[in-house]
């Protein structure tokens, strides 16, 4: 892992890093010397590691809980080159958008991204855990594409002890979800036009005994931070039971 940049603002240090061809960001509290629990954040489709929804939540986790937070670009996203396979999938997505087969095409593309992203996250986690800033339990936060990748990752990665997912629930994730037993918080959109209460099927599939689903109309999330507070409390509670 190589650090490529360092800036700080509002009490948060942001460091850019690369591991192999993967580009990422690590946020931690300014002047914080004690090792802290780590939250991994997966961005949505077409977005990147520094998308506003990632950045605002990362700052919240760092400043209110003292966590370290890491995000990486998914394959072909953000600072990463698209492979010919990505280009082909994206061309397919555009076509599907025109022909009305968009959701299936997204599921296929997400599955391809996820197969590549899981080992990338594991290598990133290996590298992050060697840093003196990071110690203790690991959580994962990601919705949409961040859920497609995160469910596949959490199913095979025992270091993750609590996870927040949401917004999508394709059947292709059911098998992975059935292998997950850690505490889950699932964020759904109750008025999603194609899939009301988006993801209740996936919520159902998690083997976790401690799992909650929170469904709101889309307008409800705008400018209202309380579901972020509820995710914050969720991580705090489960990190402390995991012995942070």
């Amino acid at each position: 892992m190589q650090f490529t940049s360092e800036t700080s603002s509002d009490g948060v240090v942001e460091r850019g890093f690369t591991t192999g061809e993967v580009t990422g960001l690590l946020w931690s509290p300014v002047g914080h010397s004690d090792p802290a629990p780590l939250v991994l954040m997966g961005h949505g489709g077409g977005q990147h590691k520094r998308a506003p929804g990632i950045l605002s939540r990362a700052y919240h986790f760092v400043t209110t809980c003292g966590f370290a937070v890491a995000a990486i670009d998914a394959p072909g996203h953000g600072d990463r080159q698209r492979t010919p396979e990505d280009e082909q999938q994206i061309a397919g997505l555009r076509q599907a958008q025109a022909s009305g087969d968009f959701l299936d095409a997204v599921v296929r593309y997400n599955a391809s991204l996820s197969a590549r992203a899981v080992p990338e996250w594991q290598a990133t986690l290996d590298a992050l855990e060697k840093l003196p800033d990071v110690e203790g339990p690991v959580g994962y936060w990601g919705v949409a594409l961040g859920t497609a990748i995160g469910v596949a990752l959490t199913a095979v990665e025992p270091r993750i002890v609590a996870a927040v997912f949401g917004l999508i629930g394709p059947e292709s994730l059911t098998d992975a979800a059935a292998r997950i037993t850690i505490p889950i918080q699932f964020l759904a959109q109750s008025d999603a036009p194609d899939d009301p209460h988006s993801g209740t099927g996936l919520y159902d599939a998690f083997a976790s005994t401690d799992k909650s689903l929170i469904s709101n109309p889309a307008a409800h999330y705008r400018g209202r931070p309380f579901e972020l507070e509820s995710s914050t409390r969720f991580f705090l509670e489960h990190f402390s039971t995991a012995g942070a």
Partner: protein
Amino acid sequence: MDFTAETSSNGVVERTFSLNDVTGVLWSPAAGADGAPLVLAGHTGGLHKKAPGLVASAHHMVTTNGFRVAAIDAPGHGDRPRNAKDEQWVASLLQARAAGESIDPIVAEYNSSLAERAVPEWQATLDALQALPEIGTEAPVGYGGTTLGTAIGLLLTATEPRITAASFGGVLVFDELIEAARKITVPVEFLLPWDDEEIARAPGLALFDACASKEKTLRVYPGRHNHVPRYEAENQGRFFLRALGQAG
């Protein structure tokens, strides 16, 4: 409204009262602020105003939020006698359950009758509570309840403009409840048990969808309706704090 007894423990003053033939209880902070928000709490079917779960969440609301909480016995529940028709419903409920038959039609009919009777009782109770100097007409009012408490609460909230926030839970859904939900526009939250053989998921989602409130949250938890996770009591406290405001 006649106060019939007063006790206090852990900073919570509990006063039982009666209003005509309705029996109730009011919990207040020992050093409560005048005009602090008031939450009306509806108990579940077959239980009463001082059921352990209700008391625990009332104490939480009083000690954490500084709110007042009032509960009344539903008709034929707690300290109130059942009429002959109620006795029949309860007998057929127990019979159907024992025979492994669906209790849905009986519960729908019985809860509908209880809710129709309970709505004017709650309104009279609220009138009397608002006549108390420490509550008055300015204190914001919320409603919380599950199962029967939700059935009554939906009908009450749909017709009672003094209630400005409501928290509902798992309930056997019948048409009147969907119609009531369509009339509700205040901030609401619905708790839905995910694995309850007597409370199906789909009608619970449909009830939430029918509610006309712009600010509404559905919170799903695993298990049966009576296995509400501890963190949901805290979530409910925070919901009322956001919707009704700070005490004092």
